[in-house]
């Protein structure tokens, strides 16, 4: 066995310790927030001293502080009785990855198992249990590996039920500790499967040497490099724009540089600050916005066809923007923005490049 050759007991112990460290070191610094019952569903079959059941168990205590036992919901009748509550939510999450349901309760028979189930989007999604002791105490059911979106969490409901044979369940407090990542507004270039492209670029059409000025064209946002705007914040207003990293004084870098923002005709040098000719134009209005499934393009608009122009201070071109009526907790893919670059006459053959930055700003 190869392990015998390379490992002795000491090194194995160290390796085990290392693996243990890898497993149990937290990989995320995700956030935690408690959400509590905020309403009864139509499935309210337990017994309560109040008309509404959720008000009996929603007090704002967290374990290990004892809950208020003077008001509770209980069930010692039919075994199939279920109490199901709607829950509060957390705004602007990217994803909820874990929910721990804490219950402060007891059963008339020690170590009675009570079912705790999660519902969202109107149907049962996850099942769990807690074990109630013979006197009031905190117990929990942990649901891991979740991928709840904002809408999933918004529709979350929790139900409790149990076999009442020879016992009665009492629940004084219930809340859910949600682990989630914060929502954010972001832009990225992703491939057809949605994976981030490590070095995104726009390829321009190749041109041969010419004594006349000519145009090179390209497309920003191909199917393999989609511009993806992801907004998991609660704020719908943003602007997506493209600008050269070097600002108004930037240029195409190569054996003989040429400009990207000179408005002179025929790619000649104009009255701007440099002595280079050439101009880049973008036409976002020809582009296509594809919303995430279940989202819409309402409130989004594409920018109009524009050219970078140092003389009239057009250093940033809007590709897409959203208004207050746009959706949140959605992503949109922008494709098909046409790019045109005029190249001065007698531009030497060679390889040219320019760095540009795609900016999304919450406004």
């Amino acid at each position, binding site marked *: 066995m190869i392990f015998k050759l390379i490992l002795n007991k000491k090194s194995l112990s160290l390796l085990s310790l290392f693996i243990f460290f890898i497993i149990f070191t937290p990989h995320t610094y995700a956030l935690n927030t408690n959400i509590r019952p905020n309403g009864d569903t139509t499935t309210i079959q337990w017994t309560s001293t109040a008309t509404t059941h959720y008000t009996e168990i929603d007090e704002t205590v967290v374990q290990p502080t004892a809950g208020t036992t003077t008001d509770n919901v209980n069930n010692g009748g039919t075994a199939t009785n279920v109490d199901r509550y709607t829950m509060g939510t957390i705004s602007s999450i990217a994803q909820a990855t874990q929910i721990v349901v804490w219950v402060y309760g007891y059963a008339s028979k020690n170590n009675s198992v009570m079912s705790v189930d999660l519902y969202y989007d109107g149907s049962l999604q996850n099942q769990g249990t807690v074990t109630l002791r013979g006197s009031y105490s905190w117990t929990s059911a942990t649901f891991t590996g979740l991928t709840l*979106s904002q809408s999933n969490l918004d529709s979350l409901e929790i139900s409790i039920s149990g076999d009442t044979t020879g016992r009665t369940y009492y629940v004084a407090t219930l809340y859910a500790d949600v682990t989630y990542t914060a929502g954010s507004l972001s832009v990225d270039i992703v491939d057809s499967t949605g994976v981030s492209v490590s070095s995104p670029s726009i390829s321009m059409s190749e041109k041969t040497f010419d004594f006349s000025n000519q145009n090179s064209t390209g497309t920003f946002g191909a199917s393999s490099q989609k511009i993806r705007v992801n907004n998991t914040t609660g704020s719908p207003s943003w602007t997506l724009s493209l600008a050269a990293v070097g600002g108004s004084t930037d240029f195409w870098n190569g054996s003989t540089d040429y400009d990207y923002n000179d408005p002179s005709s025929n790619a000649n040098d104009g009255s701007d600050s440099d002595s280079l000719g050439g101009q880049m134009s973008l036409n976002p209005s020809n582009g296509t916005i594809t919303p995430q499934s279940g989202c819409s393009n309402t409130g989004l608009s594409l920018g109009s066809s524009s050219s970078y122009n140092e003389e009239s201070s057009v250093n940033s071109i809007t590709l897409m923007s959203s208004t207050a009526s746009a959706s949140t907790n959605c992503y949109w893919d922008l494709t098909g923005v046409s790019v045109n670059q005029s190249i001065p006459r007698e531009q030497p053959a060679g390889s040219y490049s320019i760095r540009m930055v795609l900016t999304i700003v919450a406004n």
Partner: protein
Amino acid sequence: MEKGTEKLFLFLILITIYSKIFYSQAIEYSGFGGKPAFPREDNPRTESIFIHTADPGKTIDEGIRVINNTNETKTFVVYAADYTKSTDGGFACKQYSQDKKGIGNWVILDKNEVTLDPMSEETIPFTINVPEDVEVGEHNGCILIQEKKPPSESAGISISVRTGLRVAITIPGEIIRKLSLSDILVKRKGLDKLTLSLSVSNTGNVSVDTDVKVRVSNLLNKEIIIFGGQYPIFRSDVATYNYDVKSPTFGSIYKAKGIVTYDGNAAAVIGETGSSNPITIETRPIYFIVFPTLKGLAIILSVIFFLIFLLLKIIIKKKRQKWIMKNWVQYKARKGDDINSLSDRYNVNWKLLAKTNKLRPPYIIKSGDILRVPPKMDGNKNTFTRNLKKLGKDNDNRISKRASDKIKSVKKPKVVNPNNIHNKLESDFNSKPNSINKPQLKPKSKPKPKTFTKSKPAVNKEPPSKPSVDEISSII
């Protein structure tokens, strides 16, 4: 090494692999970004942008949450930059390399670089130091988060991405909130598409959250579509909004009007809804033609051609009727005449003959019936035409007289005996219900109606073998 230890070792490795796979499958990644660390409950906009009102010389403590929702550990550069306007009234931020004169220079971050594990975040405190000599009104800038990585060396346009948060600082004083509108411009974008362009100027010294609408209606003032939304229009900026109008299938004349509503209250703060002074301004309506789509154009042209064809047909028909009324002569039917024989004799299509004389199936002609027939020709069309010209302004009676004179010299036609018709009709009806009403067709020849004669009442099943060309039509 003991077997139990080996098993434990393998188990730990499997757990590690499983946990990594499970972990990577569970998370849906959504890029990186930032949020204000200390949003105010009374202003929901502060959850996404930094909004403050501060006197000159004041220092504001703030913080930004830098969020890495990707599946990789990333290092981010966090920096402040001045505001710059983008096209179409968009908000943009200057570049890292550009000079900082405004808010980009006011903001001092506790640190400008942060490394974050996947799905994690960190808050970076910063201060906004408002200068003493700052101008009254709103000042805008950005705090940006950009991944730190070496630039691409590839040819073409290399792209990097960054996320920014707007920083809006208002310096109290004489705040002016005022917008003005330019007329809507119509720009054609091909045959079946055009763009309505509305420009809104902010002549005040603060940004204004503006409800911009372009209402498009037809000539009956029925609303076709409303474009627009709520946009921030920044101080001293001219925001231009372009809305594409696609042609309706059949095109139309439309009217467009720009309507802008904003809060004119000088004390209004971004994102806060309090006492407001709503102001609405409108552009003059403009009228424009929207061309039909290619499909619509094809349909319209087809309909126009069809209508022209119908009109021509009606005109020809009217002219022919007029010509007939003017030139055909009266003929008194004789014994043995039927529509076939008259058609042959006057070299005219039997259908035209029947139609002119309003004969209905079974096209019975009684002896003594007064019919209109073409004037008898000498067999030469040109001669006939010359004769017509010669006739000049002869009225119908004179034509009829000449024609009737000619008719007298013509061989007597066969005349249908009306007394025999009833019996024949009855018998034919019983045997062949439709044989009387429909002229029986002979293959590859024009149909002729069945006719009846006095001596031989049976239906004539032999239509004229070669129906003559409609001479009148050809003359016209």
